[in-house]
């Protein structure tokens, strides 16, 4: 494992060309998360459309990992049913806590699989999770209820 393999092309691409970055016109709620050890910041906004699908906006500044993670997240969960988004979030969380030993499922995680190498660097896991924590917090604030595997989280 060397550092170049942590910085996958996909990560660099999302970092340099962030997808879906910007604020929503009318957000139901937003969450601002900071990584107090390094100052990375991300604000995630959420709303649902008429059919209950997620709309996500974000802003942020920080390292390539935190900002690419926000871009990947926004691209993946935009327009999804909140339950499907929650499944991706749970899978991403599991990947980040795998210490780099997991075989990530590309069908669920899409570009998120590129972050597998990040899990080997404990100091960077928080960077990768920052936007996902903001998403979860914003959903809770917006009252978006998610059910996964029989558990209810509101």
């Amino acid at each position, binding site marked *: *494992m*060397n*550092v*170049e393999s*942590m*910085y996958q092309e996909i990560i*660099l691409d999302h970092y340099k060309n962030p997808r879906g970055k910007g604020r929503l016109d009318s957000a139901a709620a937003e969450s601002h998360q900071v990584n107090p*050890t*390094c*100052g*990375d*910041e991300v604000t995630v906004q959420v709303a649902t459309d008429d059919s209950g699908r997620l709309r996500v906006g974000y802003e942020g*500044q*920080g*390292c*390539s*990992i935190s900002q690419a993670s926000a871009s990947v997240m926004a691209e993946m969960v935009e327009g999804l049913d909140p339950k499907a988004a929650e499944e991706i979030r749970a899978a991403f969380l599991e990947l980040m806590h795998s210490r780099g030993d997991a075989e990530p499922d590309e069908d669920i995680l899409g570009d998120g699989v590129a972050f597998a190498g990040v899990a080997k*660097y404990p100091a*960077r896991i928080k*960077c990768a999770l920052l936007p996902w924590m903001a998403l979860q917090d914003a959903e809770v604030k917006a009252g978006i209820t998610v059910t996964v595997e029989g558990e209810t989280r509101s």
Partner: protein
Amino acid sequence: MTQTSVAPTEASAPDGLRPVDVARIRRDFPILARTVRNDRPLVYLDSAATSQKPEQVLEAESAYYRRCNAAVHRGAHQLAEEATDAYEEARRVIAGFVGASADDLVFTKNATESLNLVAYAFSNGTAKGVHAPDAVDPRFVLNPGDSIVVTQMEHHANLVPWQEVCAKTGATLRWIGLTDDGRLDLDGLDTVIDSTTRVVSIVHQSNLLGTINPVSEIMRRAQAVGAIGVVDGCQSIPHMPVDVTALGADLVAWSGHKMLGPTGIGMLWGRHEVLDAMPPFITGGSMIETVFMDHSTYAPAPKRFEAGTPMVAQAVGTAEAVRYLDALGMQNVAAHEHLLTGYALERLEDMRGVRIIGPRDNVARGSAISFVVEGIHPHDVGQFLDDRGVAVRVGHHCAWPTCRRFDVPATTRLSTYIYNDTTDIDVAVEGVRAAQEFFGV
């Protein structure tokens, strides 16, 4: 720019100085022989966060536990006697290192606790003053309208405690701002520190910018308005000769772990009269004179500020660290770091896309050098350096408002000590260049 009397000066450099023998020193530090990541030799450039420890310090701590461990200042047995001697001898040695008398040196957990001890003297003094004005020295009673002065380059440890004091007492926090090259802006000094000022607490050498501040000048102003003067010596005392009694300060705080000593010990020096007037911070055993069910009286300083079983092994270890530094000579340590700093500044200045945050001239400046690389976040720079075995610190370095002052979210910081030489700087510079190449900036 006024220099402090203790700053290494170009003029004093050649005469009577002995070069620091880095190769010999490195053999004393077992950790420097290890490899990291992909079997890379460790290049440790993070001594401003914490220094490494020589064998001598590790051995002194271990020998204390092996031979004479016991609770100090209590017990009638031989071990207690020897442990007490070791602890008090450590106090004498460490005090001597900074030109002080042992009676004026308080041991704490770290510099953060030392600074809190001082801050709490004011909030506790103010609270007590409400009910028993006669029991408190009025210097430690604050009122709305009073002001506390810090600088815009403080470590959070010398900022947040004062914010808390202000919130509890109604006093106002003021600060001395910074110039674009990372120096204190002293133009308005006499208006920032005025007749309302009761405390002036400033950092001697910035851990983020590297700036060495003209503390004597600022302490003189504090004295002139009758304020208590506090100096955060965390980054100066490990790196240059400092006589705490010559700074014009009432109180000076620093840590053991940044000067080759163990973690878990901090120091607070105070003018005896000031220490003796200060209300206690942490209370309990060992800090009392007499105890009744409804009240107690307290031991004189330094005991008054050392409640509970103290950190004896750490004091012994720090005394050994002091002997190690004394044997090298702090003038020589300062001169060595001055050369390294000059070299590092020059190499970084030569790089495209690198901006140094802090003084770029090697005058009144320590070896902590912060920089940002255009187009690459400090976290990513740090990751590339780590991959090459180079340990640097990235982030806001517990001085977030200082980062904001320079409009950067974070910096990469390299910092040197006695075991570093110019090849360490070269490896770091190469690492930054590799990161630039990789990120295509």
